[in-house]
């Protein structure tokens, strides 16, 4: 895979943005109908969100239609691997913290995150992870005294 050149895809920005707004409007609108509406004088919990969803839906439609005829533009986007690694990194930290403990969670999260940098050698990745484990432990556990277990429940005997 070519990691030198940035990845570009053709996108009609207005249409996609309008569709996203419309999708959120429908989502929020549908959920709000489940709450009591009340009246204008005594608004229930559903009144205001439904109102906002309506306006958002109209804006979304308008943005999409206004941009319908514009040609699609070439848009530079982040590579899917990098996207996944960066988004999954905080989740991995949340999932591994309790069972494996702080140190292991930091190392794993850092390793996952650095996979997003295509031309980094594995040695550099491992060194970064170890350095961050030491640095984070020093700052957050020793200096700030945040009560997180250094070793997780699975690693203790």
């Amino acid at each position, binding site marked *: 895979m070519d990691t030198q050149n940035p990845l570009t895809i053709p996108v009609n920005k207005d249409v996609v943005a309008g569709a996203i707004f419309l999708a959120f409007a429908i989502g929020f609108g549908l959920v709000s109908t489940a709450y009591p509406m009340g009246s204008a004088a005594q608004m229930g919990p559903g009144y205001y969100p439904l109102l906002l969803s309506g306006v958002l839906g109209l804006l979304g439609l308008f943005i999409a239609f206004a941009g319908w005829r514009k040609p699609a533009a070439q848009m530079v986007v982040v590579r899917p691997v990098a996207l996944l690694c960066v988004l999954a990194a905080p989740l991995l930290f949340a999932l591994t913290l309790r069972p494996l403990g702080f140190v292991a969670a930091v190392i794993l999260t*850092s390793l996952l995150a650095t996979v997003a940098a295509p031309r980094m050698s594995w040695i550099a990745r491992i060194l970064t992870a170890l350095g961050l484990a030491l640095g984070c432990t020093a700052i957050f556990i020793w200096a700030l005294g945040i009560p997180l277990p250094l070793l997780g429940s699975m690693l203790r005997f």
Partner: protein
Amino acid sequence: MELLDNVLLGLETAMTLQNLFYCLVGCLLGTLIGVLPGVGPTTTIALLLPITFGLDPSTSLIMLAGIYYGAQYGGSTTAILVNLPGEASSAVTAIDGYKMAQKGKAGSALAIAAIGSFIAGTIATVVVVVFSPPLSELALRFGPPEYFSLIVLGLILSVTLANGSVLKALAMIILGLLFGLVGADIYTGIPRFTFGEPSLMDGINFVAFATGLYGISEILSNLEQDPSRKSKVSKPKGLLPTWPEMKRSIGPILRGTGLGSVMGVLPGGGATLSSFAAYTLEKKLSKHPEEFGEGAIEGVAGPESANNAGAQTSFIPMLTLGIPGNGVMAIMIGALMIQGIQPGPSVMTTNPALFWGLIASMWIGNVMLLLLNLPLVGIWVKLLSTPYNFMFPAIILFSAIGIFSTNMNGLDLGLVAMFGLLGYVLIKLDCEPAPFLMGFILGPLLEENLRRAMMFSRGNPATFFASPLSAGLLAVAAIALILMILPAVRNQRQKVFTE
């Protein structure tokens, strides 16, 4: 003299050893993160927010203010030395500052930026002291309709912050308003949009929201290109500007301060617009306009003073009305609420020490920047040459640990990822995050005042036009909206942002 008493109370609060220490740490940390290429003040504050939670409200706000000034100064440093402005407000500085650096005058540019910022900060602090009390007295007389109209005006004006389509910015505001509603309904307690998750009852974790929207999405943008490339850093030699340089800068510094002080108060103004305006003004006034873009020191002095003055006076609407004028102030309001303080006109009377202490610390923060950041410039330069490969995993981890430790809730980190993705996609589609953040912060307040006003008027929306103040605010909002949509103004706005 009441004003003097207030200032003394402020100095007393800010000058405690503890508060001075945290203001200093804030300035240093703010510069440390803010100096990283591509990390702007809003992102810096969002990333550093969790570490202030353990402190008492005054101290944490003072530290945040320190972080803000540090971040802003760090951003200017990056703009001057590597031509990579972190946020729009320092984009202007990069034009002439980077040219100066290439000509070996990086030291002068950095020094003038610091001196200009200090002078601007000092004058703007006085502006805040003088204008805050009358404004909050006025705001105390606001009823629900006036408040509703004021928030609408603030939100509409925040559209001017956004670069690009007005419709998209409006949609971003409403999307923010909707996300701000997640949690228990204020009147009935019925959970809304929580999907049965108890930790969402208090709303979406603000830090997770801001970190995802700014921090994670920015990392994704930076990873579009191969991040292992190294940026070229010009090393500054000598840190003192020469006497002729000083003389050329005094005028721009004072004019920038005036311009920034006025524009900072306007919702949607803040630091960005004022630095653009100052640059344009200096170029028009200069006897040598051809030097602009080739390393004119006035092109650094004016905008840098303006953006610092604007940064300072943008605290006025935040502190007196509880309405943030820009993304940074929205985060400040979020921080206040996390500390259990409802921002608004009553803060000055119920929490005078916090209010005046914060204002005093604005000035102290500026002194620290001048005395500390300038001599430390060598360290910032070293930091700048660190490859991004080592930077971004650290940023991800620091924010993950910070957010997790505030609530010990893994779901918050899921929200970070979610808003990171949403923010990245929306920014790619030319939808800017600032109006989204403003809507998120103001959503609950807008709903509360709308429902209360409608209850008092028995469901008659004419109540918003009944009082002259409320009607006036809505009229200004309507005019602003129409002006922004008119093609002539739109072109002008486009020009300001691309210049």
